[in-house]
């Protein structure tokens, strides 16, 4: 059974439709990268999933409970971090965690201590949050998201303000959680950060889901980018397709699979064009998506 199921989710602000029939699902152990340009509806989707905004149309089911009809049961195993980690600045990190804990039943203080260690805040946890750096607040936000031992974790741009070490820690933490069966939805503007550990990718633009694919499917896309050096790039202009481009006088790039690139080079050589160098570059997640989305640029 899937942990999260979103079916035809629509949201209107007045007459403006900001989400149109958004559908996707998260299973046990999934890490879904939720990607889209600014204003695409990422945060709105997340807020609808959490009951922070009312759903205009559609259905959200979490752990088998309809979010609309049975909010309390649906939300009880969800941990979240939405936008910035907004906590009570005049309390210490520990007091904030205790306060969040008190909204749930049966969470011991030992569990809280182990979460604090997990996010690496043990040295500063008794300081007031107003003295924290952004990265530390982000860690505290993740700790709060984990406090109820959730099986669905929804993180909205959690890498904001984290240093490379913090991002690495988070990546390891999320992989470990996913291994234990937690479903994770994670949105970020930094696609390369997600590429290395997510197993599903969902792209949203203008309130519509453009594509939901597994990372393997994307990696299977047998297209690669080749950078080729020649003596004069003006001569090869007529041989390029729309996705290829000239970099400068000597270099240009083409996107083709292995069979096609061989044919392409042969064609150029037969036309008496000098090829000095052919370098293969793997497509990044972002570029793969540009292709899937039919060339639509995302931020």
């Amino acid at each position, binding site marked *: 059974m899937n942990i999260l199921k979103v079916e035809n989710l629509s949201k209107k602000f007045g007459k403006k439709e900001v989400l149109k029939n958004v559908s996707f699902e998260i299973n046990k152990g999934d890490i879904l990268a939720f990607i889209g340009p600014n204003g695409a509806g990422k945060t709105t989707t997340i807020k609808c999933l959490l009951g*922070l905004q009312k759903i205009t149309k559609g259905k959200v089911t979490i752990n088998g409970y309809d979010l609309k009809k049975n909010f309390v049961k649906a939300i009880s195993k969800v941990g979240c971090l939405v936008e910035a980690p907004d906590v009570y600045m005049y309390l210490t990190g520990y007091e904030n965690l205790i*306060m969040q804990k008190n909204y749930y039943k049966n969470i011991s203080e030992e569990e809280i201590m182990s979460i604090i260690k997990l996010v690496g805040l043990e040295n500063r946890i008794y300081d007031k949050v107003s003295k924290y750096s952004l990265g530390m607040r982000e860690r505290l936000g993740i700790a*709060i998201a984990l406090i109820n031992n959730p099986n669905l974790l929804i993180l909205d741009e959690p890498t904001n303000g984290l240093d490379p070490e913090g991002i690495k820690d988070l990546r390891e933490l999320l992989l470990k959680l996913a291994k234990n069966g937690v479903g994770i939805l994670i949105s970020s503007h930094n696609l390369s950060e997600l590429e290395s550990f997510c197993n599903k990718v969902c792209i949203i633009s203008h309130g519509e889901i453009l594509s939901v694919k597994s990372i393997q499917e994307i990696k299977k896309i047998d297209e690669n980018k080749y950078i080729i050096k020649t003596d004069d790039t003006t001569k090869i202009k007529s041989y390029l397709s729309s996705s290829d481009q000239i970099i400068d006088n000597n270099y240009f790039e083409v996107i083709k699979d292995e069979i096609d690139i061989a044919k392409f080079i042969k064609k150029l050589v037969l036309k008496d064009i000098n090829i000095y160098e052919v370098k293969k570059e793997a497509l990044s997640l972002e570029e793969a998506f540009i292709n899937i989305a039919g060339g639509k640029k995302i931020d």
Partner: protein
Amino acid sequence: MIKLINAELKKIFRKKSFLIVTIIFILYCILTNVIYKEMDTLLEMDDLSINELENINNSLNLNDKEDLEEYITNKTDIEISKLKDKYKSMEIIIDKYLYNLIYERNNIKYNTLDEEELNNINNNIDNIMSYIKSNNWQYFTKLEKEEIEEKLKENKDDERLNELLKLKEYRLKNNINYDYNNYLNNAIDTIETDLLEYYNLKNKEVLTKDEEERFTSLKEEMAINNYIIDHKVDANNSNTLRAVLTNFPNEFGLFILIYVVMISGSIVSEEFNKGTIKYLLTKPHKRSTILTAKLLTIIILIPFIIIFMSLIEIIIGSLILGIKSLSVPVLIYESSTGILKSYHVLKYLALLLISTLPEYLILALVCFLLSTITTSTSAAITITFLFYLISNVISNLALLYNIKIFKYFIALHWNFNYLVNKTSNPYNFKPIFSLGIISIYIIIILCISYIYFNKKDVKNI
């Protein structure tokens, strides 16, 4: 639910603004008590007025007839003041027996210049002064007593004279001199003064509205002063902790309001402003549960804060003014029955505060509603204060004009002080009608708050 309320309380108490207002309140409390203690000194300006009168006299032209009259009056006032200062225990006697004589003497000295008359008057004054100097106030009491007894021979059943006689006997028996600092003397003096007017009004067949009011207030004054004499309690002293406590809502009402507005104006809106609402609303609780927790927090906190403020006042007041006055009861005169009731000060304070509680509760709910709708703390607080000011204006207007629509305005109903002070409702409402109006307002406010809060989207920041 208890956990939720607990969390709300923790948020409120840990805020800096709460601490700051409390510190300001404590300072204000100290100042108020000091003012109560020093009120007499602040009001006492006799020395200044003597100097002033002398200055005026120096500038007057004694050849002018009007100036001369003023000069004589001032001169007399100065002499009387000086005598009163010197013979504290005889103040009333000096006013009563010496004023006319000294005025006459000055009149002769500066105006008529009749030597023989002057000697006569001087003898009279010396005679009286000899008793004053020897502090023989009993002489005057006995003198007055004899006069009354003489009159009573002619009219045995004169109630006023009989009461006056009792007062004279009481004064002699209990050894009460004529010092204005002696509360028993003041009580006797007040009754003696009131008696004449009281019996005049009592014997009148038809009283005008003003006269009737005056008659009621005379009855009240006499009842209270008789109680003071009978029980020997200093109930009219305004320089005591007891006086501060009986005035508590007037002195500290604004601070109660500040606390109430500060808490209920931010309890919902601040979560939205600071973004903490996102955590709050993704907890396994219904939105209405969250709002109920906040509402109950306010309802629990208001009485708690009022009690807390009273305790601080009692502690500070007892340090500055002493606690002796707490044993003196509060006297409430019930005009409809003519019965005088006595309450322990703390019991009276408790009743008084309970009777004003609906007012603060409604204001808290109004502020809570605004906080929920606008999600702006400053808007909620400002509008609530404006509402409070307008309420006062409308309450006053309603006293002047009998406009039907005012009848349903909440501010005319939310104060039950009149029940504690045993006066009639200024607008002639029955308490049950007021309670009905209050309930309707509360229901409307809560309905709007809950509907709004349940439907509200947490906007993207």
